[in-house]
């Protein structure tokens, strides 16, 4: 399957071509180059997935999908302990699934951007960066070892930086891009340290290490390996915007909306989840005691983000917080997974599958939501909800796809989000009912704030003057991706719901991806499914009751009753201010400035003092050399007298 190399090379070439020669291309040519490259990638990815799952298929002996490593070479040798930095392509169920997700969403975004970015200055640059990002993200998911993952991890960080800062004339975009890069890089530092520890103790950077010597060194390492994994998790948490490293993601919405859809909803932000999933065998085998860290970070983030999302007025921010919350769901699902072996008697292993499943479905419907939001913003030229309202008349297609995605994320049966979220809650319930109920509650909050958003945009009070000025309308090239993504959402949802309720016995997501690669048929736990559905419907009903009308007396009353709560949630519980304080007031003002001062005045001052001392001394000595003959003679005489006196005395 060496051809998979082209999955990475195509966008790389497209990036280089557009990056170097872009300014001599017309917008259209540049867009076509990027899109065609991505079309190629998509075709190759789908073919690779087909070949991997259905041509090569399960191993006859183990009954699992085996890892395929079509390419692997030593990129940079390290010379101690035989460590080496490899580059290659690793295909296993999750990387193949990621290939599908990335190429699909990226392709959709490429098409969509034709419309959204039309006439923007720097159109070529935009497509170049998209290609760069796609390349890096694909490289990340097919990484054969943790170091390659880190390499592409950094690259996605940079491309995210470049894309968030695409509108580089806007101060907000500059600040947001800077923040995104620095926060994630700070997290990456821990990732790197984790890699260093891991590499040293296991003598390898490989993901799975099952030779006897490797096991021996794991055993020796004691708490070291969990420590390494946890450090790597911090890196993942940074990329995946887990609390308290989430602060960059809402700001990252300053980038063009298709970018938000691609990077900050569907692909890059799930890199952390992907990383934990990638290292999952290690986590389960060697660091099970440390896994509650993942769970509780996830649970708290999910709750926090959902709470904040309820109060935001910028539609992209609502979606951003919803993304954070949903990724936290995936994290929690991984955290509650306690065993590798699958099968219906092994409920502990459902989480892994559920997490990956949710990753997949979430990528699709969240991309759809973001692209829909992009259409809306494109139409009304504003991100604020109060500029919208009643848009369903103007943007019918967007309205329908948005509704579909909202239903999906809320967890309504027959939409994809239902199946995956249901599995997550099942997994949580199996781990601990407490976690399960908390997650159900958060799922309800999700439904609530999503429908608050939905009604705020498409129903509710219409901002008539604004709409009259802009004539909101849809563009065909921008609606096609929406339609495709919602078809996937509905299709996957309907299929898996029916299969899950046992209507027919076919393949389901678990058949392709499960913790140990065995075939796992999803069957819903009826009580869980029912509970969560009812809860979701209630939440939607509540949202409808509060927000659907032209006037919203209840909402206003609520704001009036809990002004402080609303304000805190709106200000995201002042996390940004805390960061601002720590970075500017503590690190800059109390560390960097003093160091710079110290350098200029103490260290440099010391050398200047040396120079001054030398100068002063020589100035002092210089006056002795006055050039006055008479003074010399006098001194000479005095010396002579002294000498003679000494001779006389002694």
């Amino acid at each position: 399957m060496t051809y998979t190399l082209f999955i990475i090379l195509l966008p790389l070439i497209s990036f280089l071509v557009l990056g170097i020669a872009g300014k001599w291309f017309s917008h259209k040519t540049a867009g076509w180059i990027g899109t065609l490259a991505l079309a190629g990638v998509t075709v190759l990815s789908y073919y690779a997935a087909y070949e991997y799952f259905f041509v090569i298929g399960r191993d006859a002996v183990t009954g699992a999908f085996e890892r395929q490593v079509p390419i692997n070479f030593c990129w940079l040798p390290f010379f101690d302990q035989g460590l080496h930095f490899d580059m290659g392509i690793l295909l296993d169920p999750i990387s193949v699934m990621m290939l599908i997700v990335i190429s699909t969403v990226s392709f959709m975004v490429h098409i969509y951007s034709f419309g959204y970015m039309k006439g923007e200055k720097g159109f070529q640059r935009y497509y170049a960066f998209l290609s760069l990002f796609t390349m890096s993200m694909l490289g990340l998911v097919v990484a054969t070892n943790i170091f390659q993952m880190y390499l592409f991890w950094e690259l996605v960080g940079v491309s995210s930086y470049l894309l968030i800062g695409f509108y580089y004339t806007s101060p907000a975009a500059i600040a947001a891009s800077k923040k995104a890069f620095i926060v994630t890089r700070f997290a990456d530092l821990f990732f790197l340290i984790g890699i260093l520890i891991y590499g040293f103790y296991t003598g390898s950077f490989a993901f799975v290490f099952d030779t006897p010597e490797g096991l021996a060194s794991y055993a020796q390492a004691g708490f070291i390996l969990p420590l390494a994994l946890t450090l790597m998790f911090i890196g993942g948490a940074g990329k995946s915007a887990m609390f308290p490293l989430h602060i960059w993601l809402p700001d990252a919405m300053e980038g063009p909306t298709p970018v938000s859809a691609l990077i900050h909803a569907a692909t890059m932000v799930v890199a952390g989840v992907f990383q934990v999933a990638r290292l999952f065998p290690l986590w389960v085998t060697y660091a099970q005691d440390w896994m509650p860290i993942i769970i509780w970070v996830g649970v708290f983030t999910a709750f926090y983000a959902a709470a904040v999302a309820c109060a935001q007025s910028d539609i992209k921010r609502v979606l951003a917080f919803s993304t954070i919350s949903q990724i936290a769901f995936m994290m929690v699902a991984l955290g509650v997974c306690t065993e590798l072996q699958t099968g219906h008697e092994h409920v502990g292993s459902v989480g892994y599958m559920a997490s990956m499943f949710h990753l997949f479905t979430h990528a699709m419907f969240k991309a759809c939501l973001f692209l829909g939001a992009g259409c809306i913003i494109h139409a009304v030229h504003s991100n604020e909800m109060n500029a919208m309202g009643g848009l369903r008349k103007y943007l019918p297609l967007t309205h329908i796809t948005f509704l579909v995605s909202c239903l999906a994320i809320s967890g309504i049966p027959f939409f994809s989000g239902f199946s995956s979220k249901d599995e997550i809650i099942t997994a949580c319930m199996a781990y601990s009912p407490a976690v399960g109920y908390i997650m159900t509650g958060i799922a309800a909050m999700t439904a609530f704030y999503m429908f608050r958003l939905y009604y705020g945009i498409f129903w509710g009070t219409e901002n008539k003057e604004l709409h009259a000025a802009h004539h909101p309308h849809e563009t065909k090239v921008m609606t096609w991706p929406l339609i495709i993504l919602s078809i996937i959402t509905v299709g996957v949802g309907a299929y898996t719901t029916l299969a899950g309720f046992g209507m027919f016995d076919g393949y389901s997501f678990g058949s392709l991806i499960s913790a140990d690669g065995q075939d796992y048929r999803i069957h819903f736990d009826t009580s869980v499914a029912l509970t969560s559905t009812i809860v979701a419907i209630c939440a939607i009903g509540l949202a409808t009751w509060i927000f659907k009308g032209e006037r919203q007396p209840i909402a206003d009353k609520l704001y009036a009753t809990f002004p402080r709560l609303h304000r805190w949630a709106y200000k995201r519980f002042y996390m940004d201010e805390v960061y601002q304080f720590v970075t500017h007031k503590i690190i800059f003002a109390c560390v960097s400035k003093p160091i710079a001062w110290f350098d200029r005045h103490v260290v440099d001052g010391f050398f200047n003092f040396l120079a001054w001392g030398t100068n002063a001394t020589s100035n002092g000595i210089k006056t002795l050399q006055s050039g006055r003959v008479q003074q010399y003679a006098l001194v000479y005489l005095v010396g002579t007298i002294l000498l003679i006196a000494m001779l006389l005395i002694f």
Partner: protein
Amino acid sequence: MNTESIVFLVLAFFVALFSVLSVTTKRIIRAATYLLFVLFGTAGLYFLLGYTFLGAVQIMVYAGGIVVLYIFAIMLTGKTGDAKQHTLTVGKRAAALVAALVGAGLLMFVIITHQFVSQQLGADITNESAAPISQIGSSLLNAGEEGNLLPFEAVSVLLLACIIGGLIIARKR
């Protein structure tokens, strides 16, 4: 108290007095004049010692040549007084005075405490050291054991160099 003693004392007083005057007077032309007196006194001392040729040379070269040079130089440089002397700080002047006095004092102490084996000035001076001119002349031009031809030639070359040097340095450009 013989005649030589009286003459010596008078001359010594004369010389010492004008030496001191010559360095303390404020007007430089006077300083030059006092120097002239000192030189004459010195010549007198040479005569007293019986070195008549030396005395004559002293008067001719010093009094007749060098002092005249000084006078001309003083006149050429236009300023007759050492006006700047006033600006000298008291401390510096005192230091110079003390140094000079201590130096001279120390010297006198050494002279007085040291027992020189010395003849007396007067009758018993041996003829040997009277140094007649003929002897001086032959000594100056003698390259032998007792001769001083080499320093003589050196001085003559030096004088030649000085003539040329003086001409070149003082020449108007």
